[in-house]
């Protein structure tokens, strides 16, 4: 998984599987002795979508990211506990004023075609990302760079105009081979379909819409991965994927909450597969259009949160495979504040708050203020069943405190263009994928409210603005933590969103694969250490 992908926060129209409490959980049946790690066998995994391009600077989809993550490396990466560690850089220094970052690159790393990896590659990658002709989604973080230079083949230095904490995470961007790309048009490069990287797996074959095959890199600087091949099968339907898994055509996939809870608890299934469960890096929320007079009253937003039973949503939509979200961070990460003064489920308090805000019960059972009924529409995107169910449960709950809710489901492009971008909505039910760095400037800063920007609910809070700038302007984790804690308190009080839930990721892996060690970051961080004992190898 490339950092570039994780760093990017973007709305997922994909269905995210459900959530858990705290530590990762594993359901595993005791097996015979595993035997020592052995090379060989293949891991066959399934994906709904096909990768778009294997040049990571040009891709934004998760399929491309998953494969690129095995073929390329960044300078830095996050470890299993969400701590930054060196990847292609063996170490890095930040100058005391926070303006200069120096990366000391690893010696002896080779590209898959045998060339040496040097600072020239890093410099090229930086230049191609900021090149206006490159259609990349990742240039913003790199535009903060004032100058970049390669001091010697193994030292690379960047200078920023002002201290910029998300910079470190941004250097998780996959480094591209300069010797193959320099002076060429990157959008027409053959590397998009047959990449050459420095990573643990070497690209072997891509049959469009069928599969991508990678092979273990024998010269990988961390050691050759045990699993000899990594096969990425494209299976666009999740029911089909599940049947392929059961029939032995796949070794790994993500389960839906229903599959996890109801369909995979048989003795037969559990003897063949191990199920894992940990919080996904995403949350789902109900957002209010704060330009509408109705939602400008804080008490109204608080009342809606009080009227919604988040636990019930998690049970109903995710079958319990998730946890309540109180703010914009994932539980367990350093920026997450475990205790915030949130509004729990309390219909009586909701009623009181609404009364205080001037609403009175009308004759038809709907609240009225100044002759206007309290009625609004929740919009969400088509194709995400969980969101629709969520909206239905909310509709029911709000109805019981006297708020009428209508639900409108729309195709993604029309939804974004005609409604979100034009501010033509009352409330939306959507989700965000979380990046590794806690900087959330783009979603909450008051300057980000122009059409097509992400603070589309028009949240404006001077204190949050100040804290966001302070938080991204220092490398001191303690100081950043204070900023983000304070932001979470403000958001809990203001309720610009009703944060609903953090779903669980529910991967399942064939039981013959060993070496999987669940950690806060999930299970895929140590893929190169996964192995199949000699006696159980099949592929």
């Amino acid at each position, binding site marked *: 998984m490339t950092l570039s992908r994780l*760093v*990017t*926060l*973007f*709305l997922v129209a994909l269905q995210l599987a459900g959530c858990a409490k705290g530590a990762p959980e594993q359901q595993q049946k005791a097996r015979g002795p595993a035997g020592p790690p052995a090379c060989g066998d293949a891991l*066959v995994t399934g994906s709904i979508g096909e990768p*778009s*391009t294997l040049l990571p600077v*040009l*891709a*934004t*989809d998760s399929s*491309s990211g998953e494969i690129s993550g095995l073929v390329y490396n960044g300078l830095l990466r996050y470890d299993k506990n969400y701590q930054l560690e060196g990847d292609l850089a063996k170490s890095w220094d930040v100058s005391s004023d926070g303006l200069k970052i120096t990366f000391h690159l690893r010696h002896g790393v080779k590209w898959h075609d045998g060339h040496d990896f040097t600072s020239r590659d890093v410099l090229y990658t930086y230049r191609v990302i900021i090149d*206006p*002709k490159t*259609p*990349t*989604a*990742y*240039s*913003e*973080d790199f*535009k903060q760079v004032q100058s970049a230079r390669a001091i010697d083949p193994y030292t690379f230095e960047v200078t920023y105009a002002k201290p910029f904490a998300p910079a470190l995470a941004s250097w998780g961007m996959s480094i591209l081979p300069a010797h193959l790309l320099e002076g060429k048009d990157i*959008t*027409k490069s053959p590397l*998009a*379909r047959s990449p050459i990287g420095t990573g643990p797996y070497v690209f072997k074959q891509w049959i*469009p*819409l*069928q*599969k991508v095959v990678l092979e273990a890199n024998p010269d990988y600087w961390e050691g050759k991965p045990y699993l000899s091949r990594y*096969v990425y*099968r*494209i*299976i*666009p*339907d999740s*029911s*089909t994927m599940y*049947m*392929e898994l*059961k*029939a032995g*055509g796949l070794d790994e996939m993500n389960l839906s909450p229903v599959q996890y809870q109801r369909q995979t608890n048989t003795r037969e299934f559990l003897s063949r597969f191990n199920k894992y469960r940990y919080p996904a890096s995403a949350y789902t929320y109900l957002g209010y259009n704060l330009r509408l007079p109705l939602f400008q009253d804080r008490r109204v937003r608080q009342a809606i949160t009080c009227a919604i039973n988040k636990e019930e949503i998690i049970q109903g939509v995710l079958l319990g495979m998730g946890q309540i979200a109180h703010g914009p961070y994932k539980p367990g990460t350093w920026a997450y504040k475990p205790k915030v003064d949130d509004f729990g489920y309390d219909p009586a308090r909701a009623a009181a708050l609404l009364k205080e805000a001037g609403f009175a019960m009308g004759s038809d059972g709907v609240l009225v203020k100044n002759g206007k009924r309290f009625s609004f529409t929740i919009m969400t995107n088509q194709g995400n069943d969980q969101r629709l169910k969520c909206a239905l449960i909310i509709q029911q709950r709000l109805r019981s405190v006297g708020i009428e809710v209508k639900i409108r489901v729309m*195709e*993604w*492009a*029309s939804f*974004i*263009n*005609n409604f979100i*971008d034009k501010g033509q909505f009352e409330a939306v039910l959507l989700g965000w994928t979380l990046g590794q760095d806690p900087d959330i400037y*783009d*979603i909450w800063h008051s300057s*980000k409210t*122009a059409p*097509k920007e*992400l603070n589309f609910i028009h949240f404006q809070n001077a204190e949050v603005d100040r804290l966001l700038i302070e938080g991204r302007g220092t490398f001191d984790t303690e100081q950043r933590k204070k900023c983000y804690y304070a932001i979470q308190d403000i958001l809990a009080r203001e309720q610009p969103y009703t944060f609903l839930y953090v779903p669980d990721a529910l991967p399942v892996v064939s039981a013959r694969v060993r070496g999987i060690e669940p950690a806060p970051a999930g299970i895929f961080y140590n893929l190169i250490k996964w192995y199949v004992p000699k006696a159980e190898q099949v*592929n």
Partner: protein
Amino acid sequence: MVNYLIKRILMLFPLLLGITLITFTVIHLAPGEPVEMQASMNPKISAASKARLRELYGLDKPLYVQYGRWISHLAHFDFGRSFAPDNRPVADKIVERIPITLTLNIIALILEFGLAIPIGILAAVHRDTLLDRGISVFVFLGFAVPTFWLALLCMYFFGVKLSWLPISGIHSLGSDRLPALARYWDMARHLLLPVAIATFGSLAGLSRYMRSTMLEVLSQDYITTARAKGVKERIVIYKHALKNALLPVITLLGFSLPGLIGGSVIFETIFAIPGMGQLFYQGVMGRDYPLVMGILVIGACLTLVGNLLADLCYAFADPRIRHGKG
């Protein structure tokens, strides 16, 4: 006849131009742009880079300029490059999907005609008997049952429970290492379920059509005459009646030509078949204008050619059309 043919062929060009003009406009009427699909809701993309993307794709130009550009490229048989992030030539993307879609559709079409025609005749000859009703129930069942549901049931039964057939895709993993014959066998096993289910679902239309034309012909005077002469029933049906009842089928065959490169999204998605249906769907959802236009143009051409061929074959088969002028 030759004059007529030339006239018909010349007519195709303005017709095609009209079709492209209308589809081009309609596609651009839908809200959203390819740039949006890649950039919307992504905090790391600035307005400037979005503008750059629009410029790159030529979306900043007025619509008529975009159309002019597109049509002049098309005149050189250049479909342009896809607006999807892979930015590949549209022609490549279509060409890599056509073989599997064609294979599947041709086999299904042969099976459909090969089964539906006899079924229709049988039903007409045994009109209102138990056999006729049984056939009706069978073909309507195929028509009514949702294919995705039937597909999943069959996959579960034949793939998971019995392990007789592969579940999805068109090749097994590692089939590229097999000898040629074994590879074809492997592919045939993969195609069995999709083809069978597709055929089952399409029997109703054609067989009912066949039944009604056959009934109509059987009620004609010349059939009564033939029977009165004492011609054997077999010969009455298969020689005198069938020939005439088959005529409209030629038209239907012509209509199925454009269908050969089309594919059902649901079907291809369920069986993980990399066909045209999925490509088109993704193109529409991603507002990939060049790709959508490319597929539509090919479809339009095939429709026009199909109609032309149907008319010609009809004229060839039916002397009334060939000679009669009204």
